[in-house]
């Protein structure tokens, strides 16, 4: 199976052949994979070098002329380093585009904290109008990338990861119910699903799968909570996100504003691990391996 980034390269190269409005802007990262596409479309595959402020600004400038820019680099440089450009050059100018990141929160553990971006989605939450996709499988990434490119002049963020689930799920419209139970609702985001399913084996909880987290599918969450709580009692909701813990906590509270509820937000901590190693080791270090997740979920539901 190819990775999400490899899938991004192949499907975007194909879309560039068929959609003259599409332009890809890079800052060296990923450029080698797009060399063939650049030769075919030298004016629409643009590598500005290691210049992320220009990366975002030039992407928005392309949108000013009516094009559909796809802008790509590691999440830490795409969203964090050039955040004011994202805020102003796309948001304030009223322009659309697709930001596609790689690296996520822990994809290259040996690379250390400089190449980790657990805060990307929390940052985008300070802005208006961003759709956020967090695919959990290369097939899902393909579906969501195609959807993002075709989404008119919307602003869309697609967070690709080297971490993925064993099988793809249907994605594209809100949350999906993966299993049902009455003890609580666990929302598993993107690559977190497999570990969540392993963690809740034997627990009577509903698991919702979210590959699109903004807009947050509050209606599906409310429906799931209604199934669990019936007409009375409080709702227990656990969020498991592959980025900063609790990022979607406010969205859950908004969705359940008129219902008694408790929320446990699991994900990446603010404290740096300052460890290298592998993705598996980092997931365990963050308490996101099946055993740790299971213990934390059980402990929360018991209270």
């Amino acid at each position, binding site marked *: 199976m190819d990775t999400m980034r490899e899938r991004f390269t192949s499907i975007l190269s194909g879309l560039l052949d068929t959609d003259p409005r599409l*332009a890809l*802007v890079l800052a060296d990262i990923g450029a080698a994979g797009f060399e063939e596409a650049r030769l075919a479309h030298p*004016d*629409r595959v*643009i590598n*500005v*070098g290691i*210049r992320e*402020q*220009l990366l*975002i*600004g*030039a*992407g*928005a*400038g*392309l*949108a*000013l*002329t*009516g*094009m559909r*820019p796809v802008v790509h680099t590691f999440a830490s440089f795409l969203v964090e380093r050039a955040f*004011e*450009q994202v805020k*102003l*050059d796309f948001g*304030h*100018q*009223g322009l659309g585009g697709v930001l596609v990141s790689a690296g996520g929160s822990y994809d290259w553990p040996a690379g250390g904290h400089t190449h980790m971006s657990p805060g990307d989605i929390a940052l985008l939450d300070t802005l208006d109008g961003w759709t956020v996709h967090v695919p959990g499988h290369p097939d899902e990434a393909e579906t969501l990338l195609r959807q993002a490119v075709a989404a008119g002049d919307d602003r869309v963020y697609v967070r690709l990861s080297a971490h993925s689930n064993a099988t793809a799920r249907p994605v594209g419209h809100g949350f999906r119910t993966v299993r049902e139970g009455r003890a609580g609702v666990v929302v598993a985001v993107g690559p977190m699903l497999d570990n969540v399913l392993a963690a809740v084996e034997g627990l009577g909880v509903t698991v919702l799968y979210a590959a699109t987290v903004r807009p947050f599918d509050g209606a599906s969450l409310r429906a799931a909570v209604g199934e669990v709580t019936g007409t009375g009692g409080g709702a227990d909701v656990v969020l498991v996100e592959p980025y900063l813990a609790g990022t979607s906590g406010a969205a859950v509270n908004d969705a359940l504003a008129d219902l008694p509820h408790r929320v446990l937000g699991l994900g990446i901590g603010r404290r740096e691990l300052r460890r290298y190693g592998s993705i598996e080791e980092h997931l365990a270090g963050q308490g996101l391996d099946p055993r740790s997740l299971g213990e934390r979920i059980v402990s929360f539901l018991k209270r």
Partner: protein
Amino acid sequence: MLVRLGFFPSPTAHENNTAHQRVAAHGFRAGVDHRWGLTSSLVEYDRVLRVSPELREAPGRDRFLLSKGHGPMAYYAVLAAKGFFPEEWLSGFGAYESPLGHHPDRVLVPGVEIGSGSLGHGLPLGVGTALGLRAQGRDEARVWVLIGDAELDEGSNHEAIAYAGAAGLGALHAVVVDNASATHGWRGGIASRFEAAGWSATTVDGHDHEALHEAFTAPHPGRPHAVVARVTPKNA
């Protein structure tokens, strides 16, 4: 077809005066530096830029990106004088109901190509605009970005300057209004930054309309072009 506005028998001086008078009539206060901005913008709008209210949505129009967005009164006055919006708007400058803020907003003001205020955004946006025009085969359209010498402190400009030179973005133009306001100055001069990156660059007296016009219209095949316009130093 687009019309090259500037080469009609010279209405420039008259329109300059008229615009100044209209602006004054609306109680608009422009300082010395801003008045320079007004006259230089008028030189461009009248003689260089192919843009007008009728063309403001035309894909092949020239673009003027005011990157140095503070002190936009002169800019608004030019746009009003050219008919992009009613002159009555000018008196509301900065008011809650007014579309005219202390920094311009493209979403609110017809004819404004970019919202600005935070420094260092115009040139990267101009690079993208030039790339977009090139990708769509609109070779006739030119992009002008007005920045200040102090604004040049922002590193984002230098990302844009280096890349635009390497990419040979001939449609891109920068006007650097140099009122010597950069805290640490520019040792070796401003134009040299552009030249070293492969731009065509020239430095002129910003109060000399003919010199400006010559600099604005100098040919620069295959290279972006920078005009450094020296004006009265801020602290003079």
